[in-house]
């Protein structure tokens, strides 16, 4: 597990052809690791009939809504959480 709770991370901004579980609206966004779930099969290969191994660590990442959307219509302090696999995360300041 490369990251731990409280660590600042960024979702990789890269494109990906084919099945993956990283939502486009979070790509390039900065967040904080909230919890480390466990390791799971990689959906990017598992979805195509392969074994999905090696398993990839999965993190619950917290984002400030105002960092995700240009114009968030809610209230400052609202947050968004999403599960992101380790190979989609990068270190951030």
């Amino acid at each position, binding site marked *: 597990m490369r990251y731990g709770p409280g660590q600042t991370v960024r979702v990789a901004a890269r494109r990906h052809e084919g099945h993956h579980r990283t939502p486009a609206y979070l790509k390039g966004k900065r967040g904080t690791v909230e919890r480390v779930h466990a390791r*799971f099969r990689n959906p990017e290969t598992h979805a195509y009939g392969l074994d999905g191994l090696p398993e990839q660590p999965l993190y619950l990442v917290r984002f400030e809504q105002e960092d995700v959307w240009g114009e968030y219509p*809610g209230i400052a302090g609202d947050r*968004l959480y999403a599960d992101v696999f380790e190979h989609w995360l990068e270190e951030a300041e």
Partner: protein
Amino acid sequence: MSPHDHDHHEDDHGHEPLTNGDEPVTAARVRALGELLVEKGVIGREDVRQRIDWLVSRSPVDGARLVARSWVDPEFKQRLLEDARSAALELDLDPGPSPVVVALENTESVHHMVVCTLCSCYPKALLGPPPDWYKSVPYRSRAVADPRGVLAEFGVQLEDGVEVRVVDSTADIRYLVIPRRPAGAETLQEEELAALVTRDSMIGVAIPVAPTPVAA
């Protein structure tokens, strides 16, 4: 020039649409896939039937039992928050095939709501089949971008001091919201409390309400 450089316009016509009367295209595609998987021996018709039987046998009653127990037993609530799968097994409930179920507690200052923007991930074992709106594109897109607006449309008005946390279940984890125990329900027993816990309140788009006291 490769053999594939020619014009493919002949593929654009001449086919009957793959539909069965008014059957939507997606349903026709799913049916065709199912037929192919059966034909190739990947799955059996009996597997499909058993899977559907299991799904429709599940209901929010199970999730509500977990919530009601957590309202009356703080130690159970702690176990539910730490490991919802084990907590479900403790009550002889089927937590389903997902390896990890995470319970999220709503409090005075935090309100959780769950969405799956990529498809329709949902704790089916504990809540039954998801409602159609949960799978709809408007809910999936607006829940993350304007959660307070969506909540207002469900009739939930939160005070500005309450932090809204939208959880996008993008991968293997299934999320279940533990709504707040309603005021006015202090004298109710666990079973009566469970009846107040609705499906929508465990998705985080509704708030349980205590029954109006009957005038003496």
